[in-house]
Structures are given as structure tokens and as C-alpha cells.
């Protein structure tokens, strides 16, 4: 099994202070190293969670994988392509912290958006239009929102909105799903439901998932491997990654697992690693 997501010694620095200059000449004062020496290989079909304290560069890692930002240094590939290309051809797909639905489009039109953008002349060819609409209907059925297809996003709850966003991310049938704290704003119960839902999609569609979160329980419950990051490079590893915790808990995972001692053990390991990350900081 080869790696489908590869990050090799990735570093990313942002300019943080800028001196305003005349005539648009501005100099970067300081750069902040957000991600240092980050190496990660994700196998096909693997579920990897990235956790760490806030400001440690979790979101940056995801933005790099989505091709939204470019690394300052290092090599990065998704499905053997540059991240931006992979996401553009639909091999990978991103779900952000906020659902980012367009409030002037109904739920189904929001899900249709990626198809519409890929094929600007979709509307003029009725069979294709029908096929697209069927795809959208199926996706909405997958996230159990078919009866809300014609609702505008402001009439949907936070969890429902995020489900629409998930359906939209699946529209182009990606192999890799990149999620950035997608359920961070949801309550505990809804979050559990969404986690199970995600695991179901993961099984059904044989996805490879990279999931950023700040909750250890969520990370352990979902993933095969938890990557723990620190803010700044760790002195011990010389990298943003402090430790990797392998989660060899059986699949399929059910909520009952959260009462299991083996689960607690993994959560404890994760918490210890996170504490180490805080010390390194």
C-alpha cells in the first residue's frame, strides 16, 4: 500500500509584521514558523487525525493539503499530484470549520455547485442536467436531508448545514477528504451523530480521511492514527509533530466504544502527548 497523501519535511512561515512603506514598497519584518519539518504519509484508506493546541498550525497543514496555501519548504503530494491540482480535479475535497454555504442557493443548489463550476454549460444539455440533479438527490439522501433539498441554508440547523457541506464535498466523488474541525461548533450529541455519519461514509466510499480537531476523544474515536502537533517545533523531534499515537481499536466503531477501557487508554496516551506538546511550546 502506497501513500496517497505525502508531506515531506514541510515548513510554512507567515509574515506577521509589516512595515508600511511609501509607494507600495513594504518589507516583511518577521516571519512566524507555523509548521516546521512536518513529515506525514497517509496510506490509502487510512483515517488520520491531527490534533494540537490552538495556534499550532493544524489548519495550516490542512490548507497546504488543499492547495490554498503553498509551503515555504518541502515536498507535498496528494494522489501523486500537487495539492491544488488534486483538489481541482476532484481527487481530494475540503470541508471547513464553517459550512460556508451560499445563502442565496437552496441546499440542493449548494450541493450542485462543484458540478456547475466544473461544467459551465451544464444547463443547456437536459440529460446531463437530469443526471447532475440525480447525483445531488442521492448525496442529500446520503446525508439524510432529502426532504430539505429546497430549503435555504438559513432555515437549517448548524448540524444540517454542515451535512449539506459534507454532501457538497462528496459531489465530485473524491478519494481523499480533508476536514478542518468540521464539528467544532456543534453540541456533543450532534457531534457524536456526525462522527458516526462520517465513519459510515468513510466505510461506504472507501475514503482516505485527514481530520483536524482539537478534541482527543473525537480523534481517538474516529482515526487509525493521531498526529499530535505542538506550537513551534518540538525540541525532542525537531519538528511540529510531537508524537503519533496509533489507534488500533476495532472497526466498525460504535458509540459504546467510548465506554471501553481500551478507548480510555488511547485517550490517556493522546492527552500525555498533548501535554508534551504544551511543554515543548
Amino acid at each position, binding site marked *: 500500500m502506497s501513500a496517497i497523501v505525502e508531506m515531506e519535511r514541510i515548513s510554512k512561515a507567515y509574515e506577521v509584521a509589516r512595515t508600511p512603506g511609501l509607494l507600495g514598497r513594504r518589507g516583511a519584518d518577521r516571519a512566524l514558523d507555523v509548521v516546521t519539518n512536518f513529515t506525514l504519509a497517509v496510506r490509502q484508506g487510512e483515517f488520520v487525525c491531527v490534533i494540537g493546541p490552538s495556534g499550532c498550525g493544524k489548519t495550516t497543514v490542512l490548507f497546504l493539503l*488543499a*492547495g*490554498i496555501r503553498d509551503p515555504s519548504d518541502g515536498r507535498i503530494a496528494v494522489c501523486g499530484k500537487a495539492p*491544488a491540482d488534486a*483538489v*481541482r480535479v476532484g481527487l481530494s*475535497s*475540503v470541508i*471547513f470549520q*464553517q459550512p*460556508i454555504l*451560499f*445563502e*442565496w442557493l437552496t441546499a440542493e443548489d449548494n450541493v450542485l*455547485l*462543484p458540478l*456547475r*463550476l*466544473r461544467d*459551465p454549460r451544464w444547463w443547456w444539455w437536459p440529460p446531463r442536467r437530469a443526471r447532475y440533479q440525480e447525483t445531488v438527490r442521492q448525496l442529500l439522501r446520503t446525508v*439524510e*436531508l432529502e*426532504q*430539505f433539498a429546497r430549503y*435555504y441554508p*438559513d*432555515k437549517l*440547523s448548524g448540524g*444540517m448545514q454542515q451535512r449539506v457541506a459534507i454532501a457538497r464535498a462528496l459531489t465530485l466523488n473524491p478519494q481523499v477528504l480533508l476536514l478542518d474541525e468540521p464539528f467544532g461548533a456543534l453540541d456533543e450529541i450532534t457531534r457524536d*451523530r456526525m462522527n*458516526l*455519519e462520517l465513519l459510515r461514509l468513510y466505510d461506504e466510499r472507501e475514503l482516505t480521511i485527514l481530520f483536524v480537531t482539537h478534541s482527543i476523544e473525537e480523534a481517538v474515536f474516529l482515526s487509525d492514527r493521531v498526529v499530535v502537533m505542538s506550537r513551534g517545533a518540538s525540541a525532542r523531534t525537531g519538528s511540529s509533530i510531537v508524537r503519533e499515537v496509533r489507534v488500533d481499536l476495532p472497526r466498525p466503531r460504535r458509540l459504546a466504544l467510548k465506554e471501553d477501557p481500551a478507548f480510555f487508554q488511547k485517550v490517556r496516551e493522546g492527552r500525555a502527548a498533548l501535554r508534551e506538546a504544551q511543554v515543548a511550546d
Partner: protein
Amino acid sequence: MAQETLRPTSQVRVPARRSPFADLGSWTIFAVVLLAGWEIGSRLYNQPYLLPAPSQIIRAMGEDYALVLDYARITMQETVLGFVLGAVAALLSAMLFVWLPKTIEDFLYRIIVTLNSTPFVALASLAVVWFGLGITSKIIIAGMYTFFAVLYHTHKEFISVDPMREYLMDVYNAGWLQRMLLLKIPSALPIIFTSLKGGVMAAVNGAIVGELFGAFEGLGYMILDSRYVGNTVRVFLAAVFCTLIGWVLLGVVTFAERLLLPWHVSMARGKSS
């Protein structure tokens, strides 16, 4: 997993939607009180040359209605054409600004800021010199007033779309036009409509200013002409018709807004989810 269910609204108590005529009563009282106060005040003052009473204005309307209506039609024509021209030009320019490279955008923007800080009245008198005393110069002046009222806000909205939404469009490989039509224009529409409402009023102003600078017809001409001969009643009459034109056009824009923005929050008031 999902427990959300839908049921027909007949089973639910939904607060009734506010009727558009709900305020009619209070508005009528307001108008009656205002007009009565004006009438009484003006009769006590008894200087029709300075402050004619509403009844005198209505009487003047009865005497001159053919002329006034004809002039109002002309001014309306100028206003509408100017407004459409100015609004379309402003929207296209705002789109062009987004499309152009930054340096050229800045350059054009500076020209526009310069023009905007030149007194409009000076520009309007120039327009009359260049385009003559006919309807063309008035349309251009009304258009110019609208253009500046609409351009700034629209452009600002186009460039301040939520960056996450821009990322989303990046991720789905959206082209420039797609980004414009599917993201920037819809998200700017509420502000565009607000500025169009201001633009309509500006267009009325523009048409009148244009007519003041030289015309043979129209309400602005009527104002100027009546003032020369000391017929204040007719000045008031023309002003009333200008206001009416403004109201009608504002109503049309508001109606279009209701049609186009059913999803917008300010439209959803009174509806229940």
C-alpha cells in the same frame, strides 16, 4: 439518524405575515395632520408668494395639469433612462475593476475619485454645453449622479467577499466569470440594491439639475421659469411632482429587490421557519 421531519404548515401556528398595507392607517393620519398644519399655517401667514397652501397647489394643478403631466413625463423619462444607464455602467465598471490588474484599477479609481470630488453642478453645466439643451444631456447628468452613488459600494462589496468563500471557489476551480456570477454578485446584491435606492434619488436630482442648466421642458425648467415670473405655487407643484417621481421609482426598485432577494435576512422578517 436524522430526526427532523416536515409537516404541513396548516398544523402549525405560524405568525401571520405582515400585510404591506398594515401601516396605511398611520400614514394617512400622518399625511392629513401634516397637510392640515401646512394649510392652516400658510393661511395664517397669508403670503402665497412665500408659502402657498396645499389647496392653492392643488388648484394650480387643476389649471395646468396637461402641462405639468407632460413635463413630469419628460423628467421621468430622463430620470429612468439616466438611472438605467448609470446603474449598468456602475455595475460593469465595478466588475471591470475586479478584473483589471491592481495598478490599472488604482489608476482608474483615482480618476473616478477626482471626478466625484469635482462639484457635480460644474460637471452638469459642462454636460449641457457638450450635449446640448435636449434630453441627452439630462440623461447623461442623471446617469452620472447614479453612477457615483452605485459604484463605490458595489466595488467595495465585490472586493470584500469572505475569503473562505473565495477559497471555496478556488478549490472548485471557478473561473473569473463564474466567481462573479455565482459568488460576488449574489453576495453583493443586498448592498447593490441599497445603493440603487440611493441612485434612484440621485437620478431624479440629476435630471432636475440638468434641466435647471438649460432646457425648454421638464419639471426643472418649470421650477426655473416659474421662479423668474414669481409663481411660487408652480415651483411647489413641480417639486411635488419630483417627489412623486422619486417615490414611484423607489417603489419599483424595492419591488425588484423583493423579487430577487427572497433569501436575504432583511426580506425574511415576519416569515416563520
